[in-house]
């Protein structure tokens, strides 16, 4: 992709970047990709449970951003728009493949060719037994996410893992905020039921 992502600082908002791309500034696109690819891959991989499929979904998401750039208006936040696209594609992917998974999420490690800190951040001050415990806990959490029903999984990942606000989740999922909150409540309780026997 043409352009150097470094030319855009954090002061340039996502919306401003998208407007620049819409208006023909090709260099804005790599920066959009840089800002969102890991966030989207993280979210989608937890929903579809397969790295290759998740990356395909995210690639298709960026292609749709490119295709629909001329339609972009700053009515909504860019993040809401891009998450909506990604989750719609992911939903179709889940429906179409019926979970013919090849790799379980808790088996995915940094050795799978990912860049940067993929699954684990080493901490120099951490004792080996603590590091092991932390890794085990994360693997358990990932396993429990994977076992949640899709409607709970999506909401739990967006809220508790990605840290999106209820307002944003409601916009993305096209649900009333009250519904999102009550579903979140049920998702957490369900998650707790899955986690407790494993601890």
């Amino acid at each position: 992709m043409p352009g150097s992502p470094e030319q855009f600082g954090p002061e340039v908002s996502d919306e401003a970047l998208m407007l620049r791309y819409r208006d023909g500034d090709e260099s804005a696109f790599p920066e959009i990709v840089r800002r969102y690819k890991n966030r989207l891959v993280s979210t989608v991989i937890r929903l579809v449970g397969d790295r290759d499929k998740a990356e395909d979904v995210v690639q298709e998401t960026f292609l749709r951003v490119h295709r629909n750039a001329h339609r972009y208006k700053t009515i909504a936040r860019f993040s809401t728009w891009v998450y909506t696209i990604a989750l719609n594609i992911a939903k179709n992917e889940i429906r179409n493949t019926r979970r013919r998974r090849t790799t379980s999420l808790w088996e995915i490690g940094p050795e799978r060719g990912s860049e940067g800190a993929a699954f684990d951040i080493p901490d120099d001050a951490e004792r080996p037994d603590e590091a092991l415990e932390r890794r085990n806990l994360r693997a358990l959490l990932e396993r429990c996410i994977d076992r949640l029903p899709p409607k709970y999984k999506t909401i739990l990942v967006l809220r508790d893992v990605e840290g999106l606000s209820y307002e944003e989740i409601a916009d993305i999922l096209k649900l009333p905020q009250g519904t999102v909150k009550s579903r979140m409540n049920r998702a957490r309780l369900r998650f707790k039921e899955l986690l407790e026997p494993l601890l």
Partner: protein
Amino acid sequence: MDCHNFRREVGEYPDREIPQKEKLALEGHAAACQSCAAELRVLRAMREGLSSLPPIAASKDFDARLAHRLSAERRVAAGGTLVFPTWARWVAVAAAAAVVLGIGALLLRSDDGARRIRGEVASGAADGSALEVALPGDGAPATETDGARSGASHPAGGADVGEVAAADRGGAIAGRSVLDKFLSEEGVVLGSPTSERSYVIDRPSDLPFLLPGGVEGEAASAPISF
């Protein structure tokens, strides 16, 4: 607050947005109930654990793959070559052949019963480089091709030029307009007319069914009629 209400509402506790009143009510009940206090601790730990899950990074070749797909998409948008699978090509050829047959039937019917429209590929067109198709109107095949004959390069298009000569005198004008419409709908790129009733086809491959042997370009020994 009792245990039943506590369990119903405790899922919201990990949220920072929880109203203060609700939060105090939950904490108040937990302070007096050991099992609910344990539940609260699990939920807190769960939330902390989930929020500290590190991002799963994209593969190293993610950008390169995306760039490749993006440039392919841009090529198509710019009118570049779109590669179809073999089955799609054959479906397209079959559909085009059906259209030609339909048009032929239409022309034969509308042409006062006597006029025949016939395509004829001369022997020189076996290599597919130059194509001459004559569409005679009344009587013997006649071509008006400004001297360009099969197998010879046309001055307007070099060796990769095919030519359709519509030598319909008199009453075949209806047939001609149908042919024009068909060619334009098929996306055939027409050059300047070489005579009053002749067209240069810039890309003969647009009409593979006119080429000897179809899309494979095999030599045809017999004239093709349609």
